């Protein structure tokens, strides 16, 4: 190591630089991520008069818009509630299977569960719409001329179930695996049958995780925009409502609704963090004979079979239907894409490039600012401040994408605090900013457990061997972190690729692939949409595949 390099690294390790680095990281986080989101509150307050007149006291519609808002909110909550319950019912057994059983092909099932996570929401929504709602889907197997379901709440529910399913299953699987099996063995040896063991031992020990997973699924459904846009029909959910109003230029109501959604999300987040022990499962009464029957191997096998069937029918098949569609309608696809008057191929190519470059830049920015943040949260002993930071990071994850997009749009634009011209108008850079806001929590959340799993003893050893702070990072922490950063990058990149809702809100003329999919569906160019879907699904899935390889190698 050159003497100069040594001197530089020593200089960089001083207290001054550490404080500077910490401040810069936190400053970035607050300015780019938190404040724009929370700005919506300030906006609503300052613009209260105009909001009041449009929403509550409009000369023509009276409080019609407020009424629409409430309906939309109500619908969102209803759907989210039902979806969460269904998720728990079909997801819990799947999580049990994945956590406890070993069988051939388990790895493939595991990655299949991740499918909805990997795929852009618009593409997924489209695929599901194709499957359930058009004659090209499941109806074609029965020779029907229309789809099984029409656009509306039922369809929305089907879509939301697919999205929230991976969250619940992943979450529950982890929680189940954290329960020490020895407790279950002990219960068995004391005479408890399988079902009783779950209800009296495993269940109570994992109930916090179960509630957390349910809340996560609930919020995911509440916030779902992209796919819902495709299937909403007349019944609008709140995020869809925001998009419509934005497109109509009705910023007041859009802001108000966004604010409400942000508020709801914050409350849910706090609830998540304060999970209490007061919720109890009934463990005191034991119905011995019923539970013994329920634990019988035949019942267990039937249950497993049913779950697998549901999984395939409701989650997998609809998600991948676009492929089948493209396969069976290749001529239509070809003509719509390659022979169209408005040169759809070029449009697609441009949007694809946009998507890739935005994703790439967003990922890079998240790496640079995410690593120090993860280090701060895990390593510094700041007590309360750390807990606050930790909670703040989750905010973008929980807020509905449309509300988030709108908030950012307002903050940086002409309606924001930076004067009449604002700093960013709807453009490439605004889209990039929005994507950074989204992806940042993913990167940090992936990095935190990785940093936490690095034994601080290595860094201590390096220090006792004479390495100053910065050198410790470069020679010791970074090599141990590399894999995690790669994994985080892939997750961030795919998330950005798939982002639909917020992008639609902030975009001007620039379009990303998910946006194009939505546009083409609205224009009834189904085959073209299918084409775009297929391309981006394949691309995303390849990325996820590599991600799995890396993380498995790590284990």
């Amino acid at each position, binding site marked *: 190591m050159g003497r100069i390099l040594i001197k530089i690294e020593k200089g960089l390790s001083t207290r001054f630089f550490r404080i500077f680095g910490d401040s810069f990281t936190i400053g970035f986080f607050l300015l780019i991520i938190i404040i724009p989101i929370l700005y919506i509150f300030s906006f609503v307050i300052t613009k209260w008069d105009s909001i009041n007149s449009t929403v509550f006291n409009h000369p023509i519609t009276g409080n019609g818009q407020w009424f629409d808002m409430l309906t939309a909110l109500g619908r969102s909550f209803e759907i989210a509630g039902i979806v969460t319950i269904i998720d728990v019912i079909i997801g819990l057994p799947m999580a049990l299977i994945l956590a406890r059983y070993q069988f051939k092909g388990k790895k493939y099932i595991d990655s299949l569960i991740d499918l909805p996570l990997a795929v852009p929401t618009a593409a997924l929504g489209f695929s599901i719409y194709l499957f359930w709602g058009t004659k090209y889907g499941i109806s074609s197997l029965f020779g029907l001329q229309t789809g099984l379901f029409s656009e509306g709440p039922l369809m929305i529910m089907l879509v939301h179930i697919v999205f929230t399913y991976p969250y619940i299953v992943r979450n529950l699987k982890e929680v189940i695996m954290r329960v020490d099996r020895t407790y279950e063995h002990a219960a068995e040896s004391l005479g*408890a049958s399988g079902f009783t063991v779950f209800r009296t031992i495993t269940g109570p020990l994992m109930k916090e995780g179960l509630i957390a997973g349910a809340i996560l699924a609930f919020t995911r459904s509440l916030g779902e925009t992209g796919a819902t846009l495709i299937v909403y029909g007349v019944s609008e959910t709140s995020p869809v409502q925001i998009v419509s109003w934005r497109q109509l230029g009705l910023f007041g109501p859009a802001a108000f609704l966004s604010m409400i959604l942000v508020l709801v999300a914050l409350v849910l987040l706090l609830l998540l963090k304060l999970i209490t022990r007061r919720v109890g499962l009934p463990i005191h009464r034991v119905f*011995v004979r019923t539970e013994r029957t329920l634990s019988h191997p035949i019942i267990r096998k039937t249950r497993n079979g049913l779950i697998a069937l549901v999984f395939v029918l409701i989650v997998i098949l609809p998600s991948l239907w676009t492929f089948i569609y493209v396969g069976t309608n290749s001529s239509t696809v070809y003509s719509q894409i390659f022979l169209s008057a408005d040169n759809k191929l070029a449009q697609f190519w441009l949007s694809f490039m946009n998507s890739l470059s935005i994703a790439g830049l967003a990922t890079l920015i998240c790496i640079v600012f995410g690593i120090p943040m993860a280090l701060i949260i895990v390593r510094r002993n700041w007590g309360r401040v750390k807990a606050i930071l930790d909670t703040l990071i989750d905010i973008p994850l929980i807020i509905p994408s449309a509300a988030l997009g709108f908030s950012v749009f307002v903050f940086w634009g002409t309606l924001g605090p930076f004067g009449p011209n604002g700093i960013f108008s709807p453009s490439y850079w605004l889209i990039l900013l929005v994507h950074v806001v989204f992806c940042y929590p993913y990167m940090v959340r992936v990095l935190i457990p990785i940093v936490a799993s690095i034994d601080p003893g290595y860094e201590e050893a390096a220090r006792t061997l004479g390495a100053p702070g910065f050198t410790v990072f470069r020679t010791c922490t970074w090599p141990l972190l590399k894999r995690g950063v790669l994994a985080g990058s892939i997750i961030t990149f795919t998330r950005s690729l798939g982002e639909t809702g917020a992008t639609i809100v902030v975009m001007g003329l620039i379009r990303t692939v998910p946006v194009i999919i939505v546009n083409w569906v609205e224009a009834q160019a189904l085959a073209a949409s299918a084409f775009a879907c297929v391309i981006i699904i394949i691309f995303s899935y390849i990325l996820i595949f590599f991600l799995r390889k890396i993380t498995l190698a790590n284990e």
Partner: protein
Amino acid sequence: MKSSEKISVELRNISKEYEKAPLLQDISLKIPYNSYFSICGPTGSGKSTLLRIIAGLEKQDQGDIFIDGKLMNNVLPEDRGVGMLFEHMTYALFPHLSIYENLIYGQRVRGMASEESEETANEMLRLLMLSDRAKDFPEAMSGGMKQRVALGRALMTGARLILLDEPLGALDAKIRLNLRKELVGMVKSLGNLTVIHITQDVEEALMVSDYIVALFAGKVLQIGTPEEIYNHPNSLEVCSFFSSSNFFEGEIEDLEDDIAVVNLQGSTVRVKTRSFSTGNQVVVAIRATDLSIQKEKTSDINQWDGIVLQHQFNQGIMRYQIELETKQMVIVNQPYNEKLTFKANEKVAVVFSPRNIFLFPHPGESLEKKIIK
């Protein structure tokens, strides 16, 4: 073991494989009621697997298990009438249930709960000396208390057969000793129990057992009382694992009237034996406590010259590692005598008494593998 004793557990020809490698090979055992059996052997000898097969948590590939005279091969763990104690740290006490609820769990899940159960539970609490802690939770209790609750919980189901899998784990030496005493005391005072205790700690096995089953590489090599296992080991493995011994290779020079004359490193030794003939290659085992050191040779018979390589003091016993003039290494354990200690590189003479010498046939090339320590 008297053949008229009633048998609690019987194993017949139990075998199990794992990925083509044999885990347990043709194990047959009879364990009588009210006896304390320990299964002792080095890591990987199959002890845990055997215990889990008895409990029903794993299935054997071949062979039969009988508990209380009934065939148990296809019976689920919860129906075998067996109580198990798990790893020492938490003893698998359910953290979300109180001590009382833990105790009564077994009866509840079997549908046996009643007013009587409450009385039985209180009686058990009294026996365990934990009457005032009924409402406490496991995390508030010490290791010894948790051990008692775990034992009580297993017994509340009416089980009279208790299985212990390394119940004292890798605890601090002195704490382990105390917990061990508590465990044995508890078992005695509760009475009428059959216990199978797995351990790789030789002293533990010697101290707690009525009988020891020596298990090596999936095979039962010997079953006997602690005295029998220690004083009459039937194989090199058992001899080397259960005691600190020195091993010498030699040859039988002569044999008259059951007395074999063996050439041992230049010295001649006479050993009482029936199973050898002249010319046999043998391995002679002498305990570390059956050797002693003095300043210099006082005779050419049963004495060797050597140099001290290392010494170690532990609780009043000095352990010397000595290299004999024949380049063989020996270990000598003797009581610490402040007037007579030897330092490294000092020249000494090693004396052995011909009384306690064990003779084993030489196993050929696998000698290294058979000596376990």
